[in-house]
């Protein structure tokens, strides 16, 4: 078990959104204010850790043929719990995320990690994997939120800072409303993934070069 490698995988080299391209729906839909992004990120991380732990515990009990159905039931149970908790304690978040909280059930990140990691590894490693993948997802959500909110609405920290209005950075009338709309979601994520592809390629080329020099 290699914690540092797992951490790096979750955050960059195997980032669930930017590299594995999972969980697109929520990433595009709810990243309009910082509050939404952080709320969604933390909910998914908690569900991911819990479902990874339970599935890892049950990995020898669940029959191979119906494993996907079993995973979905475990995940749906945790999603329902988190959904009810958010409705009870954070009604604002529940209103602004709407149908996307119950839809965490079909978020491919969670099922994907259950199938690819938790069903083959020990409990502790699975819990850490859930944590790091969750952090990787949350970080992407926050980046998307900050970019879209700043350029589309001219504010920072909407929903949390300054009584929910956010701190105004660009004066009113200047921001490009378009980035808050669906188009902005597609565009921002496209550019972000392009940036990561470019950076990873450069990094690979560089490490290849140093290898050659070492030879």
């Amino acid at each position, binding site marked *: 078990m290699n914690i540092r490698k797992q951490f790096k995988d979750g955050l960059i080299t195997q980032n669930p959104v930017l590299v594995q391209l999972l969980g697109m729906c929520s990433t595009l839909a709810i990243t309009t204010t910082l509050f939404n992004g952080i709320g969604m990120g933390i909910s998914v991380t908690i569900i991911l850790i819990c479902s990874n732990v339970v599935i890892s515990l049950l990995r020898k009990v669940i029959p191979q043929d119906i494993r996907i159905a079993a995973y979905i039931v475990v995940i749906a149970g945790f999603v329902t719990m988190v959904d009810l908790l958010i409705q009870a304690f954070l009604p604002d978040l529940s209103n602004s995320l709407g149908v996307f909280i*119950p839809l965490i059930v079909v978020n491919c990140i969670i099922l994907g990690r259950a199938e690819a990691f938790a069903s083959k590894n020990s409990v502790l490693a699975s819990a850490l994997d859930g944590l790091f993948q969750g952090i990787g997802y949350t970080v992407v959500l926050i980046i998307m939120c900050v970019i879209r909110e700043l350029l589309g609405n001219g504010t920072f920290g909407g929903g949390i800072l300054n009584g929910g209005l956010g701190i105004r950075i660009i004066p009113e009338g200047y921001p490009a409303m378009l980035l808050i709309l*669906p*188009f902005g979601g597609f565009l921002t994520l496209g550019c972000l993934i392009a940036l990561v592809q470019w950076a990873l390629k450069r990094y690979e080329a560089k490490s290849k070069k140093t290898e050659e020099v070492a030879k």
Partner: protein
Amino acid sequence: MSFTSILSIALGAILVENFILVKFLGICPFMGVSKKMDTALGMGLAVIFVMGLASIFCWLVNEYLLVPLGLAYMQTVAYILVIAALVQFVEMFLHKTVPTLYEALGIYLPLITTNCAVLGVALLNTQNGYNFIESVVYGITGGIGFTVAIVLFASVRERLEFAEYPEAFEGFPIALVSAGLISLAFMGFSGLRVW
């Protein structure tokens, strides 16, 4: 409930509030199986079929099972089970009775269980308080909206192969940006209403 309310639900689901381009439901299959026109069409048809059936069964389960028993908070779990069972059942049924249709839709059916448009339509039906007919119409037209978007997108993507763009945008990023442009075009429908 009247003919106009049904029409406005249908128009909303297909154009104004398109499931993919405006509501962001079902992005994974939208990106995954849109490289070729015919596969996109196959996926679209499978989604229409399953979304219609899911709307029917989830509405029945909610109305006659969950609400009378006071289990409405178990909706998410119940719906996803209904959908998973439904997809499995449809697959077996088609395999036995209509092999040609099965061959056309076969490989897409298992993917649909985790398509968030299907669970999304069931949840939205309940949230909007639609009655049985409205739910079915919303499900089927939502599927048609999905098909329209994915077929349009597939035809754009086929042309992208001959386009020139920066190397870093290779593959997924350029697809996302072009999906964004299609969604921009669909924004032209917002404000469209049926009186």
